[in-house]
């Protein structure tokens, strides 16, 4: 939002303002489909930054339905596999790496540190299944299997008691637990594990807004006097927003500081203050920047944008410097921009880039 705001203030793209329409789907797939139909009917040029695996994977058939309109989804905030595969790969452009890439990477790192007994706790839906699939594939490479799995229902909040799942996994004594869940469910799992004096390394994935997670856990810590923020690893699909050596991070912080965007109208929650910076918002910033770049390259007919031209511009993007050190390219056969996974861990109450995996060795 901040980036679009800054672009609009400095004259827009090719002299045109970017209009953003936001609709809330409450992480409910049925609403996602509803909102998508609404946006198509409102003649949106493109769909942008959809959040969530069950939501996005369920609305994908709609894009094939609107095949003739050639409407594209740009940079959904999910690492799920379907939009990266047939029959939807021609409808979606992805910036971030996929979940299975993330969890596979986590497995690689754990196995490398001799943590071969991997258990997984995941959301019982397509998102969780996506992460589970990555873990499965990762372990398969080493001839290993998932040691034990536990699930929770989508929509579980922080008050949900997950101690049963904790006990299930703890019973088989895994070397590490990979959590594929929402902010609140992940936080609840960490809380119940630590409350049960189980200090196993727990990893979370990029879908989790880490500053948000930490703020929930530190709140809990203040109430119980326990530490919750140790032995945590987070896999990220964008570089750390703390790495000021990257031009994109500087630009991101600049935009946030300048425009200090509030959540879109109607999205405020009482008592919730979104963290100033986060991987999530940084990803959003990168998504926006990449989209604007594509828009800049798009040819207009009669001063109007057309979807064919947009796809053409996107697919012809080559070695664009987004400011994160990795050049971005799309073509008709490859609509996946990034495949890199970044790891962070908590130090002094903050997630910082994790460089030394040896310290995690068993």
């Amino acid at each position: 939002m901040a980036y679009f705001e800054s672009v609009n203030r400095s004259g827009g793209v090719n002299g045109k303002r970017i209009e953003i329409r936001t609709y809330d789907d409450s992480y409910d797939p049925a609403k996602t489909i509803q909102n998508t139909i609404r946006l198509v009917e409102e003649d949106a040029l493109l769909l942008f930054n959809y959040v969530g695996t069950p939501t996005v994977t369920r609305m994908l058939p709609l894009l094939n339905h609107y095949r003739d309109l050639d409407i594209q989804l740009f940079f959904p905030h999910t690492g799920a596999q379907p939009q990266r595969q047939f029959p939807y790969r021609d409808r979606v452009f992805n910036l971030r790496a996929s979940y299975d890439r993330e969890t596979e990477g986590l497995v690689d790192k754990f196995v490398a540190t001799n943590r071969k007994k991997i258990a997984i706790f995941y959301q019982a839906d397509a998102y969780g299944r996506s992460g589970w699939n990555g873990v499965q594939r990762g372990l398969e490479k080493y001839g290993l299997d998932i040691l034990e799995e536990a699930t929770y229902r989508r929509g579980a909040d922080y008050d949900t008691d997950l101690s049963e799942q904790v006990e299930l996994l703890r019973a088989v004594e895994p070397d590490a637990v990979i959590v594929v869940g929402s902010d609140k469910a992940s936080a609840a799992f960490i809380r119940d594990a630590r409350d049960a004096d189980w200090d196993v390394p727990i990893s979370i994935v990029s879908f989790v807004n880490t500053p948000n997670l930490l703020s929930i856990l530190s709140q809990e810590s203040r109430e119980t006097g326990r530490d919750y923020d140790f032995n945590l690893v987070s896999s990220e699909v964008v570089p750390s927003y703390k790495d000021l050596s990257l031009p994109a991070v500087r630009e991101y912080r600049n935009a946030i500081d300048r425009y200090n965007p509030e959540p879109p109208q109607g999205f405020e929650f009482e008592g919730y203050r979104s963290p100033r910076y986060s991987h999530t918002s940084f990803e959003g910033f990168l998504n926006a920047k990449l989209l604007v770049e594509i828009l800049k390259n798009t040819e207009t007919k009669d001063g109007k944008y057309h979807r064919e031209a947009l796809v053409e511009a996107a697919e012809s993007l080559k070695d664009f410097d987004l400011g994160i050190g990795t050049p971005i390219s799309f073509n008709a056969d490859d609509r996946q921009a990034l495949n890199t996974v970044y790891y962070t861990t908590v130090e002094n109450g903050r997630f910082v880039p994790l460089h030394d995996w040896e310290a995690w060795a068993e």
Partner: protein
Amino acid sequence: MRRPSLFRKILIGQIVIFGLVALGTSAFSAWNIYRKLMAERLSKGKAIVSSIVYTSQFLLESSPPETTQNAIDEFLAIEGVSYVFAIDADRNIIAHTFVPTIPTEIRALTNSETTGTVVRELEIEGVGQFIDISSPILLGVGGHAHVGIDKSEVVAHIREAIVQQLALILVLFALSAIASYLLIRQITQPLVQLTEYAQQLSARNFPSDIDIRSTDEIGLLAATMQSMASEISGFLARLERAVDDTTRKLQQAQSQVVHNEKMTSLGQMVAGVAHEINNPVGFIHSNTSHVSEYVKELLEYLQLYRVYYPEPHPEIQERSEEIELDFLQEDLEKTLGSMRMGTNRIRELVSSLRNFSRLDESAIKAVNLHEGIDSTLVILRHRLKATSDRPEIRIVKKYGELPLVECYPSQLNQVFVNLIGNAIDALESATARIEDGMLKVEIYTAVIADQAIIRVRDNGSGIPAEVREKIFDPFFTTKPIGKGTGLGLSISHHIVTEKHRGRLVCRSESGYGTEFEIVIPLCLTGESEAPPTDEAELPAAERS
């Protein structure tokens, strides 16, 4: 109270009926719902499985697991479906809906070899009972799809349905109980009234009316009871009267017997005494005339002596002066006359006594009633004389022309004695109140229409009304103890009304005296077929 008891019985009956109905319908419903739900769930499960199998043929190989997960998530939303999972050809679960983890029973299930659709009962420990329906994808090459149907959910459905049904039955039962309470109250209200009525009847209280307006059998019963009560009431009244009557008769008979016995002994004694006196008095009386004649001749002879011997011996002269001969001659005749009068009165008295006792006259006989009355007066003469307390009582006879009357003379004489005696008693106790100071008993006789009427009236103080009602009751008396038996008027009443088919009426006005009136037919034998003399009733009187 009877009403709640009846209500309780009917309530218990209703509870039993409703209980049976509830039990029966619940069991039937449970069985029915279970059968239908299970069939429905089973067919649903089969449909889901075949649907998954069909779509999976296109999805499994080419699609990421997210798509499979999305598909089974969709099926999980269907009611009655507890879990869905898919396994690949290597028997690994590639997508499932289990939370918090895959149960061991399910893991065991993945290893079983199946061809075609299989329905299995499955119990998952700590979760419940399920029906697992599985079907192979591409004949098992593509793996298997499983759908779990929750049996306990079916049971919960049944329970809910049963609870609703029982609630409905309970409501119906409550309504029915209220209705029957109202109905029973309507029925028992008249019953209670009827019961109270019957209780009153038992207490020999005969209320004139009961307020039962219902037109049904109870109303009929009430009406019947009412008419029965009135009949019983009448019967009881008659019975009481009869008992009173009999009692009175019995008392009268008893007193009659006693009295008769007394009178008979007295009569026998009087007759004996009169008989014994009669003989000596008879010859005394017959000799007085001879004595009178002899004395007269002796005196004539003495007169001759005095004529032919005017100068007697001085000693004779002296002696005649000493005995006052002249006075003696004069007085001797008077003395003899007085003796004759005395013996006459003795004879008269003896004749009256014999006449009164009439030992020979206990059978019906035509008599002159005036003789009986006169005999009675002779007997009671001594009571008429003046005393220190009162002047003489005068008897005023107002006798009419009275033919011979057929009657039991001795019994009627008793009545006369009683009535005249009572009149004298009344005058003796009421002296102060006689205005002109003259005490009198008036005796009146007459004949009116073949009936003899005898009235005995005194000018005493009269009888108060409350006493008058009871004067004919046996043993009722106003006299001091020892003076009266209370039988006199009762016996008299009996003699007049029963023996002579007559009437004995008392008329009295306080302060003006009392009148008793005897009315008896002149002819007693001809008027009645059965003579009133009853052997059983008056044996003593008849025996004598």
